[in-house]
């Protein structure tokens, strides 16, 4: 397959007239079959990057190769291999779900006998068979997103771009979409480039995460490695009154004590695996514990460490 479903950029830049650099010299390497989460706050440059990678917006500097083809010079070849669900579900409210898929199938030049079958198959896959002949203006946000995804898959792309696919969706619809995206990568080997502002989405779905801020990539790696990079987990213990005096001494054996408003907390030298030893030690010393909690570093902690700001609470780009 070679570079058939990879994404590579070098110094990719997009500058708008009368504006700042939306994307500033980013280098990316997304491997085949990988789910790459592109995480960042409002206006960080996520959508601009997707528009460039999908050939909808020319870069002002740098290069990008998608599926082995240059996005600026070999647009038609790139477009033949990618599917995209952009930030807003790009649907016609007056057409039905089935009509959308048949339109897409025809424009993507699927053989005539396959068009209906492919539409039915995708409607089934995204759980819209029952609503296939209803006009899209009556669909819920989740249904529109699922139809948008189905349309992106009509021509069996090897690379899928999803720009904030779950923004505004309820928990159930979000979970259903995550499941489908994960299935596409695991079972069909589709490379997924997913932008999101939701930390838990990147954490749950992505094999690797790139964190973008002010157009620059500030951190990249697996969610676990990024979190590990900024710190080890902590265990916070709230003792019952009678064990109070001994807890700090006991916990200090497992690492450095850190401030805790409610009880005693220790940053585990041995990482998460140290938790069992802490519990055993507390038990062996007969310390009565009211509450014990493991705090893992989150991607928000990573973002905070890299940018000095928290990602939580930011709106959509």
């Amino acid at each position, binding site marked *: 397959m070679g570079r058939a479903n990879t994404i590579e950029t070098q110094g990719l830049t997009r500058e708008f007239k009368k504006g700042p650099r939306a994307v500033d010299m980013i280098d990316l390497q997304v491997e085949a079959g990988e789910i790459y989460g592109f995480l960042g706050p409002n206006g960080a440059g996520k959508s601009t990057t997707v528009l460039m990678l999908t050939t909808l917006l*020319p870069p002002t500097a740098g290069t990008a190769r998608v599926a082995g083809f240059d996005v600026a010079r070999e*647009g*038609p070849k790139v*477009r033949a291999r990618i599917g995209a669900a*952009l930030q807003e579900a*790009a649907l016609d409210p*007056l057409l039905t779900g089935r009509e959308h898929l048949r339109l897409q199938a*025809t*424009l993507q*030049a699927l053989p005539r006998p396959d068009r209906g079958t492919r539409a039915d198959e995708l409607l089934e896959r995204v759980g819209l068979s029952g609503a296939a002949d209803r006009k899209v203006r009556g669909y819920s946000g989740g249904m529109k997103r699922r139809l948008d995804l189905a349309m992106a898959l009509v021509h069996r792309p090897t690379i899928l771009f999803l720009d904030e696919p779950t923004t505004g969706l309820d928990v159930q619809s979000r979970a259903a979409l995550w499941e489908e995206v994960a299935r596409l990568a695991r079972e069909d080997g589709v490379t997924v480039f997913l932008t999101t502002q939701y930390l838990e989405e990147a954490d749950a779905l992505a094999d690797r995460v790139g964190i973008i801020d002010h157009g620059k990539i500030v951190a990249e790696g697996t969610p676990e490695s990024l979190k590990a990079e900024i710190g080890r987990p902590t265990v916070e213990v709230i003792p019952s009154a009678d064990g109070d005096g001994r807890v700090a001494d006991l916990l200090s054996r497992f690492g450095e004590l850190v401030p805790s408003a409610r009880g005693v907390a220790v940053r585990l030298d041995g990482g998460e695996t140290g938790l069992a030893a802490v519990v055993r030690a507390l038990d062996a010393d007969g310390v009565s514990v009211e509450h014990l909690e493991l705090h893992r570093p989150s991607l928000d902690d990573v973002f905070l460490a890299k940018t000095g700001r928290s990602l939580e609470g930011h709106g959509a780009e």
Partner: protein
Amino acid sequence: MTTTRDQVLLLARRSVVRTWRQPAATVFPLLFPMLLLAVNSGGLRAETHLPGFPTHSFVAFALAVPFIQGALFATMNAGTDLARDVQTGFLNRLSLTPLRGAALLAGQLGGVTVLGVVQACFYLVVGFAAGVRPKAGVGGVAVLLVFAALIALSFGALGAWAALRTGSAEAVQSLFPVFFVFLFISSMNIPRNLIATTWFRDAATANPVSYLLECVRSLIITGWDGEALGLGFGIVAVVGVVALTLAARSLPKRLAR
């Protein structure tokens, strides 16, 4: 690879289906010109007694107006639909397929043209019911339908250009009053040679819409009038060529790929 013809037919069908599913877009262009025709025919019937008025039937005289109003609706429909596609991102989705830009434009305008012809048939049927018999006969009716199709195509292209330039349905709709002003300062309600007010006669003479009306009117009340037909078809051709050129130039910027 889908052929350009398939792409055009597909998008023309979508355009027709979309319009058909919006009752306001279907019913209003059919009923509004007929209501105006009824009101004008009732109120201005006395004009037919003016010396030099070309017919005894004001309905026959005024039947040309709905054809031009139909063109205005074509402009709005084509433009608004395309602008909505820009606004919803649907055009971006189409950009990601192997769709040719020319096919997109032709498909959109093809649908508008079909609707323009349907409207023209409706106006003619109403005219027939009111006793109007086109002087140019069956051949004249055929020419009238071709003219209606060309008007819809040309003015639809203007709407498409506005949509591609602005990307805003509201901006396209704001053109409507402008076109209506052109219609009202034309020979819409009275032949140019009978307009007594000089500035109005001059404005109507300079206004291309007058010649479009007179082209339709000639087939209905005069018969075969080479000059009226030449001017009407000529103006439609010029508007069409200019509008299509402008729309085609704006398209690549919208289909940024």
